[in-house]
């Protein structure tokens, strides 16, 4: 709370943006919050902070040192790549899960607190209840994921006598469909359906989360849907009829420019 009382915000905050884009700082500021009528608003003239990472600039993209695994082995990475690409495939709209780094995103998430269900209730007994009562498993998410990958591979072997990564697209889709339907068992009580939901959700997260997490490479996921990412303000355009197409900015850009 002590910081709250300061009249000046630390440099680099959104509140400083208010100060620079706007006008006077309000009178008695007990809360330490900048008052200022915003005249700047939607900031189109910000330095094009996305330029260095944009593939359109023609510069050679630097190696992505984030793209190595901290949890998966090579096979697990490959199956994840193959499966997520079918969930979110490359097409005329733009890159698919692979080019967006989704499998690396998933790897990194599973290695961290979320993979270990760290902020979730983990005390027993673990009892199966009604569907309305939600998850009841004692198995951590990152273990479920590995078991799910193995289940996919085994199902492929059984049906096509090939590993999942060697299947044709239609065959992969057939395996994922039976996974989604719950026909493939993962481990006691964990159906293919719950693993499939996890896989699908994590794929969308990897496509659309801030690039800081390893997916959504070069914000290409956002660009496909004209999502502007992290902007300071939409005060100027929110009332407008016209669609405001905007180059996206990431949290990295925010750190770099504010």
């Amino acid at each position, binding site marked *: 709370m002590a910081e709250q009382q300061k009249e000046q915000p630390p440099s680099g905050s959104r509140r400083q943006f208010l100060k620079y884009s706007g006008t006077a700082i309000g*009178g008695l500021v007990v809360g330490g919050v900048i008052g200022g009528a915003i005249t700047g608003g939607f900031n189109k003239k910000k330095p094009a902070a996305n330029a260095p990472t944009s593939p359109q600039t023609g510069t050679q993209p630097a190696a992505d040192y984030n793209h190595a695994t901290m949890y998966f082995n090579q096979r697990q990475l490959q199956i994840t790549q193959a499966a997520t690409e079918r969930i979110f495939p490359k097409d005329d709209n733009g890159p698919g899960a692979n080019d967006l780094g989704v499998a690396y995103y998933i790897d990194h998430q599973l290695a961290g607190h979320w993979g270990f269900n760290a902020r979730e209730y983990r005390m027993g007994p673990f009892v199966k209840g009604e569907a309305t009562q939600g998850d*009841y498993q004692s198995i951590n998410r990152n273990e479920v994921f590995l078991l799910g990958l193995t289940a996919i591979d085994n199902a492929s072997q059984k049906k096509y006598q090939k590993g999942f990564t060697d299947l044709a697209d239609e065959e992969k889709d057939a395996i994922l469909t039976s996974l989604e339907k719950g026909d493939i068992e993962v481990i006691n009580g964990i159906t293919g359906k719950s693993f499939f939901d996890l896989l699908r959700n994590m794929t969308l997260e990897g496509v659309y989360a801030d690039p800081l997490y390893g997916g959504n490479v070069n914000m290409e996921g956002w660009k496909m849907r004209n999502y502007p990412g992290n902007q300071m303000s939409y005060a100027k355009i929110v009332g407008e009829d016209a669609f405001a197409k905007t180059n996206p900015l990431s949290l990295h850009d925010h750190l770099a420019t504010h």
Partner: protein
Amino acid sequence: MATKLPRVPVLIVGMGWIGGIIAAELSKQGIKVVGLERGKPRSTEDYYMVHDELRYAQRYELMQDLSKETITFRNTSKMTALPMRQYGAFLLGEGLGGAGIHWNGQTYRFLPYDFEIRSKTIERYGKKKIPDGMTIQDWGITYDELEPYFYKFEEVAGISGDQEQAAMVGKRSKPFPTKPMTKTPMIKMFEEATKKLGYHPYMMPSANLSEQYTNPDGITRAPCQYCGYCERFGCEYGAKADPVVTVLPVAQKSGHFELREYANVTDILHDGKKATGVKYVNPLTGQEYEQPADVVILASYVFNNVRLLLTSKLGKPYDPNSGTGVVGKNYAYQTNGGSATGFYDDKQFNLFAGAGALGMEIPDFNGDNFDHSDLNFIHGAGIRISQTGLRPIANNSVPKGTPTWGKDFKATSLKYANNYLTVAAQGSSMPWRHHYLDLDPTYKDAYGKPLVRITFDFEEQDRQMIAFMADKTEAIMKEMKPSSIGSSKELGPFNIVPYQSTHNTGGAIMGSDPSTSVVNNYLQMWDAENVFVVGASAFPHNSGYNPTGTVGALAYRAAEGIAKYLKSGGSLV
């Protein structure tokens, strides 16, 4: 061994909106107040990297750590309740400011009908209108009595809204302190459609400031930037009214307020008649403290307000079999459903932009604003459109029949990413004899105390209401001329998995009769005059509105009561 600390006059458990309001009101009068908050300190500087959907919206950065404590849930008393292991239906607050940090800021007043729901329902439709087992009761206070407190909260928070009085809602003594939020294209479409259908739209009252504002405490805040990262996020601009940028600085400046974070209260200490203080533990170090106090205020949200009373054996626990006892009684929720989504093939909206409380609502089907004579339900829902900012992980709606993954899903979800609108219904929730809170017999928190157990389900009343509302939302959506419409008419059983709303109510309800309520209309406990139990836990039912406007009003009412009690003692009514 617990360290025993020197006695304090007023002790507050929980530093959300309620804790903050009461701390500010009392400390301004020179009364010494200690505030205990189990979570961390927070300030606007913490939100430098806040535009992060994964961290805040998907991983619940600001919410209660469920590994320490959660709730258990079952639909009926025949089932075994199980813990909510990961977040679902609602998101609990933790840390300075509580859920007030990551709320939307939609700030309504409940209707005059709400406060006298039983009398008014009987008056208009007869006793038979209230089905067997529905335990609605009057609140022991009227809208008119509460009006000044509503305004007090709105004035401190700087609520933005239409300057003229809206139709079919409670009369205001003064207009909203700030002008309404920006009318965006989708809001204009909703306005036109609902007016054409003969309804009475008004701008959603908003705690996201529409303009720069200085409140009566001299706090100046900047206007909302419509940044689209509002609900589940903290506002770095301080534009969204939250306790940390409004009431807490006032308490701190008074010199009479001491804030202790990392203080998790485990017990209310009492002698059977009055509280003598609380026991708390530092969740980081495990160190225990005993804090004697003259007055104890519970402001720890619905679940812990009730849980602390039950684990500390203060007040009479509710017994659903006999319908007697009060602590845990009349748990209710919010009945969301019956929405209509319109997809536009050749119209794009700036859906990425928005604010938590940017929207418009019609009052025509809320409360008793329409005739229920031929309907199998009472009360109703607020029907609204809102533009809160659609973030890309969570928002990938596609028309019915589209696959949920693969080539077609990708193409279709991208096509409609900025092209769909939803008209939604936020329905009321009536209390029933068999809906209640008690202590779970099996599951415990990190300190070995039983978790609170919820027994709750949607009823036929709710299903009828949602089916009725679905027709209305669909008709409005049709007027808004989309290329196609998807709507949901059916309401299943209550399910803890999908997020619905953090609008839990009841369990320590207010009223005018000690045999049917826990607190009087100053939120003072009937069974322990120096304990005030404040929050939506006091709602005898939930209305078709978000709760915090009414919660804020009750907090100001309670603060007045506490000050009176400190002077004169005894029961305030």
